[in-house]
Each structure stands twice: as C-alpha cells, then as structure tokens.
C-alpha cells in the first residue's frame, strides 16, 4: 500500500513553504515541545487549501517532513476520505515523498479526528489538525481572558461544565474534543478526536504535534508525557462502548462507524480505522458481516 517517491512539483519549494517559514514553524514546535500543552502562536500562512481544512496540520507536516519520510494521512480514521486524499496528494505533489496507508510504515501521520488503533511507536510523529485550539473557548470567548486563565491555571470552570453534565444527565456527556490536562499543568484541547482515543495520548511513545492554522497556534505532547482526561473521583473518565464488533473484521476493541444500510433501521458497525480493519482481515479475522437491526436490539 506504499506509493514510492516521485519528483516534487516544479516551480515550488519542497513541501510548498519556503525554508525560512519552515524554520519559524519548527521554532514554534520546539517551544511547544518544551512546554507541553501550551499553545504557541505562530505566523500561519495562507495555504492553497482552505482554513479549517487542515492548514495547521499541513504547515506542521510541511515544516518537519524530509525526503526520507513516509507519510500517512487520515480523516475520520480512513485514508480514502476525500480530504485525506486531497492532503496526501498535496504532499505527494510538493515533496514527492513516499506515502502509505499503513500505520506501521509511516514516519509521519497527519490526522483529523482519530488516532490510529495500532499503537504508535518511538520515532513516529502524529500531526493533528486542530479547528479550535482553545479548550476554554466555550466557557470564555475572549483570548485575552483565556490566556490569563492558562497562565494562572484557573481551570475550575471546566469542572463546572462537567458538574452540569452530571447534574443534568447523570454522566459527563462530552463525547469528543474531551479536555485533557497535559503534564499536570496545561489544559489542552485534544482536537475533535472521540474521547475513545484520549487514553492513547497518555504516555504515548510517539511525538504528538497539533497545528491550528486559522487560529495560528501550535502545541505539542512530547513522547511519554502524561495526558489526563478531566473527571471527578466518583465519576471517572470513561470511553465509548459498543454492543457490537466490527462487521468486517470482528474487532471488539476499535472505534466503530455506524453505517446505515437501508431505510428500515438496518445498521452495521465497522472499524473507523480502515488500515486496522484491513490488517485484521488479512490476518484472517472475520466479522459477522450482517447488518444489525437496531429496533430488535432496543427490544432486548
């Protein structure tokens, strides 16, 4: 599944950005690594892809990618979603580096909304596309105020939100972009990954970089750094569970996409991580394959 190297696009610098710009982004990355979870402002540029479509991740990837790298790009866990294809093509054209759909083979993985199921290893870098880097934004709209809250570690108000969830719903009902505390210090938005993926961030051997192009911020979680999801002692953090296994590969431990198969309540559940699912099937795992009727389930 790996596409070999090609000649980069004529007329443009390697990875589109000029070397000065890449250097300034790398300086921001170094600062971000030095202060885990802290949002470092950077001089984000207009990219040929729209803001909100991964320009932050693209700039981070562009500034760290080298000719020897092998790049994987996923969106919603899949390599073949249109925006993932578009970004992968962008780098294939502007750098000529090898691309892959295999998590294990990639040196850089740019992602939107998921962390691969297969554990990342030392030396790998995962680059998250971030729409809103500020975890306090929904509590306090003003940048001037949220910066002060970070500086003074005034995070009590985040727990007010969690308290409200429990008081009203009996549980914390944030299901994605679930706030985390990094290295015991900075409150951080993990980007809109499902909370299912939050535990993977904790003490991960890979370097985790976050780029927000429109908001012009970069932040990072260095390898083996503590990432704790906010919770209460008596309402501990918990991830999503399914009553099903993947219909294709039978996996019981992966994040599942719900696929509507007809208009009579027919559903099936399949791995959101296409590479993980494919690997399992290659290894001989088989799922039940048949759509599940939700109505029948409700009657159980």
């Amino acid at each position, binding site marked *: 599944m790996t596409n070999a190297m090609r000649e980069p696009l004529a007329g443009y*610098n390697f990875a*589109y*950005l*000029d070397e000065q710009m890449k250097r300034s982004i790398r300086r921001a990355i170094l600062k971000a690594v030095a202060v885990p979870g802290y949002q470092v*402002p*950077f*001089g984000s*540029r*207009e*990219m*040929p892809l*729209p*803001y*909100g*479509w991964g*320009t932050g991740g693209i700039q981070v990837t562009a500034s760290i990618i080298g000719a020897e790298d092998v790049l994987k790009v996923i*969106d*919603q866990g*899949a390599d*073949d*979603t*249109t*925006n*993932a*294809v*578009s970004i992968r093509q962008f780098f294939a054209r502007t750098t000529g580096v090898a691309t892959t759909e295999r998590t294990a083979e990639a040196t850089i993985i740019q992602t*939107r*909304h998921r962390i691969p199921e297969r554990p990342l290893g030392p030396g790998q870098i995962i680059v998250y596309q971030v*729409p809103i880097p500020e975890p306090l934004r929904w509590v306090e709209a*003003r*940048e*001037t105020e949220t910066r002060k809250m970070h500086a003074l570690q005034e995070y009590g108000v985040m727990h007010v939100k969690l308290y409200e969830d429990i008081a009203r*719903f*009996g*549980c914390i*009902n944030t*299901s*994605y*972009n679930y706030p985390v505390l990094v290295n015991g210090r900075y409150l951080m938005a993990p980007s*809109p*990954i*499902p909370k*299912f993926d939050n535990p993977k961030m904790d003490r991960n051997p890979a370097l985790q970089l976050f780029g927000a192009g*429109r908001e*012009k911020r970069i932040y990072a979680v260095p390898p083996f750094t503590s990432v704790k999801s906010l919770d209460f002692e008596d309402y501990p953090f918990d991830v*999503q569970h399914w009553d099903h296994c993947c219909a*294709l590969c039978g996996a019981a431990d992966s*994040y599942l*996409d*719900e*696929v509507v*198969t007809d208009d009579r309540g027919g559903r*099936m559940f*399949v791995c*959101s991580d*296409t590479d993980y699912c494919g690997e399992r099937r290659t290894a001989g795992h088989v799922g039940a*394959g048949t*759509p599940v009727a939700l*109505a029948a389930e*409700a009657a159980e």
Partner: protein
Amino acid sequence: MYVAVKGGETAIRNAHALLAEERRGDPAVPELTLEQVKEQMALAVDRVMTEGSLYDRDLAALAVKQACGDLIEAVFLLRAYRTTLPRLAVSEPVDTATMDIRRRVSATYKDLPGGQVLGPTFDYTHRLLDFSLAETGHPQEKPAHGDAAAIPERMPKVVDVLDHEGLIEREIAPPEPAEATDLTRVPLDFPAGRDARLQNLARGDEGFLLALAYSSQRGFGSAHPFAGEIRMGEVAVEIVPEELGFAIEIGDITLTECDMVSQFKGSATESPKFTRGYGLSFGHCERKAMAMALVDRTLRTRELGGEALYPAQDEEFVLSHSDNVEASGFLQHLKLPHYVDFQGELVTVRHLKAEAARRRPEQAEIVP
C-alpha cells in the same frame, strides 16, 4: 457483503473536471480574456487585490476568472499564491498628499483648495438598468476632458487643514520609525497596535466592515463621523535599495483613501478636538475604505476613554472575525466528514435517552 465507500481520488478528479466545465460555460460563447476582466470588471479586480493583500491586476483578474466570479474564492487564490512570493523590499510609506487625483470629495467643506473632483462614481447615477449595455458595440459618451487639466498637481488634505488650526488630533510619525507589524508573518495579538488593526481591516471582508460601520451609524456604538475626505488616484511607490541608499520610484498604484473625522468631547487629560478614522484600499474600493475608516474609529473607543459596549467597538470581536478567507474556510469545513464525532454523539444521545427512560419510566417515549 458491505464494502466501505472508496474512490475518493477519482471523485476529486471528476469534481475538478466538472468545475472546469462549469467555469467555461457554453463553449459557443467566446471565452473571457484576462484583459476583459481587468478592464471591464475593474472593481471586482480592485476588491480582490485589496482583500488579497497583493497589488497585481493581472493575477487578480486571473483569480476572478478562475473563481468563476466568486470574489472571496478569488481573494483566497491570490492569498495562497502570495504565500509563495519572496519579499524583495519594503517600500517607503506612500504619500497620499501627492496623489495624482482622479476623485476627491469632502463632506465637511463646501469648497477647499483644489476643489471637489467627482471623478468616476456611481454616486449620482440613477440606478436604472441601462438596456443599451445589453448590446455590445454601443457607442459610449466621451467625458469632457477639458477640466482634467484644471485639477491641481497638489491638493492639501482636509485633515491637514484641520491640523493647521489645531482642531484635530495630531498624528506624528515616531522619530525612529519602527517596523510595522505584518499580520501575514506574525499572528494577531491583543491589544493590537494601530498598524496591526489597520492591516487587519484593510484585508478584512468588505461586507463585514460595511455591516459593522452601519451598525455604529444606527446607534450601536456611534462615533458621529463626517467624511472629511475621500480621494482616489495614483500614488508613486518608492523603495530604498541598500546599495543606492536613496529612494527610487518603482511604479504607481491606484489607491482609495478615506479620512473620517469624528468629534471627541475631551477627557480629563485631553481637550475637545476632532479625531481620525482611517481607511485605505487598493484600486477604487470606496465603500470599503469608508467602512474601514469608520470601524478604525469605533475601535478606538476604549483608547479615548469610552466603554466598549457594541460589536463595532470590540477589538477582539472585530479583528478576530474580519478575515473572509479564514471565515469562509472554517464555515465550509462543516462539509467535511464529521462522522466519527457524530458517532460519539449518537452513542451519547442513545445512552442519555436510555438513562432518562430508566429514571422516569412513566415518561418514556413510546417507540413506534
């Protein structure tokens, strides 16, 4: 057996081809040339240059054509191209007092040195569809160029007239001119300096600034402005090459400049006087320059000792949301797949529903 949707790559290729077909329209109709766009859609080109932060009529015309007339898309194209351009030099500040004037109006003085010059404007046209334009080759009325020669070389600026009398706040350049902030290189920071604010507003979306300026006129943070002066024309751009050590002209650009004048009642430390709001655009973007000048002034509310109560007075609100390339991208990213997050929400809502039914079985909805 279910197979996940594949073929993103082919779909994208096809979408590009379809877009190209749409752009061309009916092949029986002659294709638009860049010259035509540049000459006959000049105000579209001007707006794209202004909000695109790049003065190049040819590239802007190309962007307009490529974007099928979608001006925000055209601004985006120009901006993305601008990212790849090297910075060869930084120009000297342009001197708009030496502008080669094509239009100059003041609403504050009936007559003033240099006079009022109406120039090319929609202002006093009756907005009647001119069906003669539906035909090509229609002979156009030639303007009487007799008085063009009568426009004096140098026209004093209205704000300078006020300045002589000490009626308007002074704007004095710092003795050692610091390098101006460049938002295309460094992120916006609050509180923003006036340089950053003006650059942000100059790049900002015309519609957004128009609406803000309008809101302030209707009482949501009024600054009681007068259009001190609006001037449009050509200004020379100069640079000082290091090896020469003196300024040389590298060309002319068309600019529209607006000085809004507002009364300021004074404070404990400052006497009553007029204050300025400033607007500047590439080409002839008069509405934009006026809106910008108004918003520049409303954003000074706090600086002048007032309380910022309305959106047009709120620096963080205005400057964070003025950029249409940012706004358009983020709005449209909602088209991207969000099904992982939506799945999370589905799981949560189903759980909450079940929980609610368990807590209050008597109120549980009846599932059909």
